[in-house]
């Protein structure tokens, strides 16, 4: 009797579910559900990422301006860039900027990560404030750097000249090409250290302490422990962070635009700022797009070198290549 009641209630339950079942069934039909779930992402990314990426390559071969689609002009944009000293200077600057800042950022970032990995009081608090330069809008901190690099009222010049007496004149930070380049490098390093330090710190914390104990018992020196344990075990995360850092430094725009706008005399333009300069204020979309497209091979190469160069070592260490 009990069983029949149960059966009846089950039947009634399924009967109750009948009216909306076509909708329920549609939403439980996997291909439909997958399509629905992927729709917003696919739509946004196709319209605002994939299509523009292709359009950018097309624009590089046209003489488009803002509001005018332009006509196909073949390699004209690239040919005129080839003879353009400002373009080559921007390529040179981009490489110097990426190379120098990456080396300094990783050296200092790794050092900071190692320091933060010690037992220190207020560790969580220190880690939190260390990340501040990464959190604050880049342009806004760049404006603070611009003020620090002021030719007349620079606090750095003031300390060096009036307080310490090491120099006899204020430094013209942004007035000459090399001074301006180094100023930008300093600002970029300052902005980049926290990200590298915090991510490498996370990597350091996954290294088992027992390895260090074993090495210590075997009489390994501090340098040997760093070289033989820390570096190899940090390599996987290092390669990812390095790839991202190179990618974002190579395509940097904000710092340069905020601090020098490419000056003095176009000597600190990066490829990204030059592309902007030509495309938006200069309204030569085609030429700007050609500069942006010229960045792509470098980007792909840099990504492959940093990722696979270090990734292969990860494999050599006998780790899973996940």
């Amino acid at each position: 009797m009990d069983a029949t009641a149960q059966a009846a209630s089950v039947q009634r339950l399924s009967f109750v579910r009948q009216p909306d079942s076509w909708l329920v069934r549609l939403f439980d039909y996997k291909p439909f559900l997958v399509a629905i779930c992927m729709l917003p992402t696919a739509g946004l990314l196709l319209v605002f990422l994939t299509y523009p990426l292709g359009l950018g390559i097309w624009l590089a071969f046209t003489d488009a301006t803002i509001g005018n689609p332009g006509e196909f002009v073949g390699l004209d944009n690239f040919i005129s860039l080839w003879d353009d000293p400002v373009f080559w200077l921007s390529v040179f600057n981009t490489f110097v900027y990426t190379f120098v800042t990456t080396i300094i950022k990783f050296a200092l970032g790794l050092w900071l990560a190692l320091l933060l990995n010690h037992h220190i009081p207020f560790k969580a608090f220190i880690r939190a404030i260390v990340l501040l330069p990464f959190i604050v809008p880049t342009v806004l901190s760049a404006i603070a750097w611009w003020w620090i690099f002021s030719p007349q009222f620079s606090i750095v010049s003031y300390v060096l000249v009036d307080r310490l007496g090491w120099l006899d004149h204020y430094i013209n930070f942004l007035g000459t090409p090399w001074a301006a380049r180094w100023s930008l490098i300093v600002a970029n390093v300052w902005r980049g250290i926290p990200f590298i330090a915090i991510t490498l710190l996370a990597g350091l914390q996954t290294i088992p302490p027992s390895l260090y104990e074993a090495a210590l018992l075997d009489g390994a020196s501090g340098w040997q422990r760093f070289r033989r344990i820390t570096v190899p075990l940090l390599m996987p995360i290092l390669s990812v962070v390095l790839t991202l850092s190179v990618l974002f430094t190579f395509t940097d725009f904000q710092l340069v635009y905020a601090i020098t706008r490419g000056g003095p005399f176009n000597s600190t333009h990066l490829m990204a700022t030059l592309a902007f300069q030509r495309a938006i204020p200069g309204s030569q979309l085609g030429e700007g797009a050609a500069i942006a497209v010229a960045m792509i091979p470098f980007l792909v190469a840099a990504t492959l070198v940093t990722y696979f160069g270090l990734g292969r070592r990860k494999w050599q260490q006998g780790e899973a290549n996940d």
Partner: protein
Amino acid sequence: MSDAQGTDALKTLAAIEAEIGTSTSDPPEQLSWDSQLRRTVTVYVPLAIFVLVLLFPFYWMVITAIKPDDEMYDYAKYSPFWVHSPTLHNIKVLLFDTAYPHWLMITMSVAIASTILSIFASVLAAYAIARLRFRGDRNVGLLIYFAYMVPPSILFIPLASVVYQLGLYDNPVALILTYPTFLIPFCTWLLIGYFKSIPYELEECALIDGASRLQILWRITLPLAVPGLISAGIFAFTLSWNEFIYALAFIQSSENKTVPVAILTELVTGDVYQWGSLMAGSLLGSIPVALFYSFFVEYYVSSLTGAVKE
């Protein structure tokens, strides 16, 4: 690659928890045999220098923002490192004589709208990739990772053209629609990790009990993924608040600009820079994200490290 995502996200969380709590993952104390002096020289002094250098620009920003003009440009009479008679004049000028409050509102609404849009799209996409197990889900995940690697500085020129064609030039809606191009890949990647860390058995039980897939997502998976949602949300908000190049390229009229662009293009006028208002503007524009950050430090750190360790 994607299989390891979940466990790695867990590992990251575990590492962070361990660090807050008992610091079990640090080298144990007996390893640091150094004397106190040596430790001071090798650890505390460099660390103090790092912290000083990393914080100095902010200190300089704050101190300049509250300095009266006569102190700001007279280093001989007043030490530049301190304020002798602090003033709110610069901030007052900024709030009442410029459109700054309006720019703040624009920035805030663009950041909130694009964050909501991105989180909505990312949750669905991440759920499909992590849980629905369709053919090619790994490739879709990989494509989204590649989308994250496409830098805005090579996209903004054709995007400007697209925005123009859509009739959205000089309209903040253009920013709301284009910011997801870098927010969605990041958030999706982060959420896939969180979804994979949730035991699949929970969903199977619900399936057996007759729940539909969307009910499962809404009632079971999402509540368990709240930490991931918070991480993705605050990160998306910060990224859109800080965004610069799209806002610079797509917005022309003063009243539609976001804070970072407006400070650089509207407050910098002529050859004489009003450093006081510039610093006050930078300070006020940094405060919302800094506040946000101070409440959610651990989420920031976990999403930062989680996103790198996929």
